[in-house]
């Protein structure tokens, strides 16, 4: 749902030279049909959001559960409840951490891929883990990070840690799984933008006495910012709405908004409050994305 706010990374303007280097796209007679699947997906998401919104205005009774009504009580409860506030902060903390780590780890990977001759193979290897179900991957990490898991065995064996540490059922394990899951969403947009940067620009910078580091800093990096923007938006949105990792690897110790909503919906059966929390999550994610996107675009424009 929050993905709707993310557009494809804009192509960096190329210095092709010559006026009128623009390509004119040809129109397909049935071009409109191509939008149909997209319209269906977005449309059903919008309908789902509308239904949730309507539910969030209903009242709740422990016995009769949802009672049709028009009330803002759920939103009021949301603001007042310290548990909700903590869950929000936890979700944001995890989302921001995952996004930053993905960016720091993913940018060099994207750079390497964009420079490589085996680009197609590397791209496939990068995306391959996505073919695995999130549930399976989470259980995989549960085993790896467990008391007798690979990580503990290795680190105690090498003498880094004196004794095995508890890694699972902590925010750290949730973050690790989410980084693993989401890093392709950071790498792909950055790599595709980097790949389209004219390599002669880097050479021109070197010709003007910029060493490799400064040529990267002043030319390649600013030109790759659209990819960074798309990657961070995508990763953050997905991290904020992740559910499987907090459920499996959080083991009840990591309370994110998604877990809270699930409890509200399925355990307490308080659909109106759960709906209000869902709507609030969507709005917060959208607000963060919009503010960040605007800021990032301003910086990108000013960095020249």
């Amino acid at each position, binding site marked *: 749902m929050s993905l709707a706010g993310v557009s494809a990374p804009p192509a*960096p*303007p*190329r*210095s*092709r*030279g*010559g*006026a009128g280097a623009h390509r004119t796209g040809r129109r397909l007679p049935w071009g409109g049909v191509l939008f149909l699947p997209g319209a269906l997906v977005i449309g059903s998401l919008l309908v789902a959001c509308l239904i949730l919104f309507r539910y969030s205005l209903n009242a709740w009774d422990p016995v009769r559960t949802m009672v049709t009504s028009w009330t803002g009580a759920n939103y009021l409860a949301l603001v007042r409840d310290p548990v909700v506030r903590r869950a929000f902060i936890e979700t944001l903390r995890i989302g921001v951490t995952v996004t930053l780590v993905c960016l720091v780890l993913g940018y060099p990977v994207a750079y390497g891929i964009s420079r490589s001759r085996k680009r197609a193979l590397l791209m496939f290897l990068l995306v391959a883990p996505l073919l695995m179900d999130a549930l399976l991957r989470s259980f995989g990490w549960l085993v790896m990070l467990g008391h007798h898991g690979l990580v503990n065995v290795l680190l105690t064996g090498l003498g880094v840690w004196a004794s095995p540490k508890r890694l699972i059922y902590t925010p750290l394990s949730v973050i690790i799984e989410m980084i693993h899951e989401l890093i392709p969403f950071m790498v792909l947009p950055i790599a595709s933008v980097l790949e389209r940067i*004219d390599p*002669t*620009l880097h*050479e*021109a*910078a*070197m*010709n*003007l*006495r*910029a*060493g*490799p580091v*400064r*040529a990267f800093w*002043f*030319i390649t990096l*600013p*030109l790759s910012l659209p990819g960074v923007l798309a990657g961070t938006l995508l990763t953050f949105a997905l991290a904020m709405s992740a559910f499987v990792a907090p459920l499996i690897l959080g083991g009840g110790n990591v309370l994110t908004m998604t877990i809270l909503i699930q409890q509200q919906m399925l355990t307490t059966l308080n659909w109106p409050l759960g709906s209000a929390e869902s709507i609030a999550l969507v709005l917060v994610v959208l607000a963060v994305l919009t503010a960040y996107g605007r800021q990032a675009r301003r910086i*990108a424009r000013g*960095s*020249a």
Partner: protein
Amino acid sequence: MNQRVPELRLEHVTKRFGSTAAVQDVSFCLWPGEFLSLLGPSGCGKTTTLRMIAGFVVPDAGRILCRGQDITDEPPYRRDVGLVFQNYALFPHMTVAENVAFGLKMRGAARSVTRDRVQWALELVRMPQYGTRRPHELSGGQQQRVAVARVLAAGASLLLFDEPFSNLDAKLRKAMQVELRELQQRLGIATIHVTHDQQEAMSMSDRLIVMNSGQIEQEGTPEEIYRHPRSAFVAEFMGECNRLAGRVVGVDRARGMAELDLDAGGRLLAPWSGPEDPPERAVAFLRPEHITIVSSGAGGGQANVLAGTVRRRVYLGPVTVLYVSLNDDTDVLVQCTNSLNGASGYGPDARVQLHLPPPSVRLMPL
């Protein structure tokens, strides 16, 4: 021949890519203030040579000296060589002024110095009012001017152009050629220009180097190369050229002449000053504009007069080109200057006699 230190000197420079030798044992000098063109067909190693001078390609063998200093192993960012890329390579996220200031910024120039020098460079290329534009808001010719201003502002002591006009339309190309050449002469900055356009190279350069499959075929002034090509390749690359094969039947050492019995019939006297005798079979090269039509009708038998039939006539404005078939159907191009009275009157199927003046003939081994 020259006491001055050359701006640039290449000594036996060689570069291979895998099994292909892109550049092979190339040596030449670029003198201060000189405009030198590297000319040759596609794939002959012009770009590779230029990229070695700029430092983007490391030669396998040989040395590159800049004002007497060996720069062969210097990285590109420590050379004072300004390369103007074929696609101009302007930084799209910067304004024109920021593009031009980039080299100064990298040198750590003071802000006021940078501002003055950017202004100076933009005025040189006649674009002082475009500083705040973005590259994509400029036409091709304007982008090229900015690219030139950018390397000038950065303080390049030497300019390199890789096919700078190939992205411009014919009219603008002519204008930019003149403008660039004037600017280069005004600044007295040594320049190497790479092109496969023979006209462009001749009209702009002090000196030409003709390259063929990685090697230098000939170097000299445009006139020297056009009038005295040293090889068949150069003769044919530098504009239209007739080639007539034949058997050498005699050499007159005293007059420095050889006599050729042409396969197409007829005899041809041609200068021959080589120390050794000409080979048994040879080819005579001569330019279409050096041939004159002496009379219509058949006849002849004298040396250097050939009979033929006009097959086609092409009117080109200042000149008319006649395609004349000789007896064995070899075509000879004849170019006649059109006078005030109109074009020469010979039309298709006219019988003509061609005069091939001996000094205009270049004899070369087959």
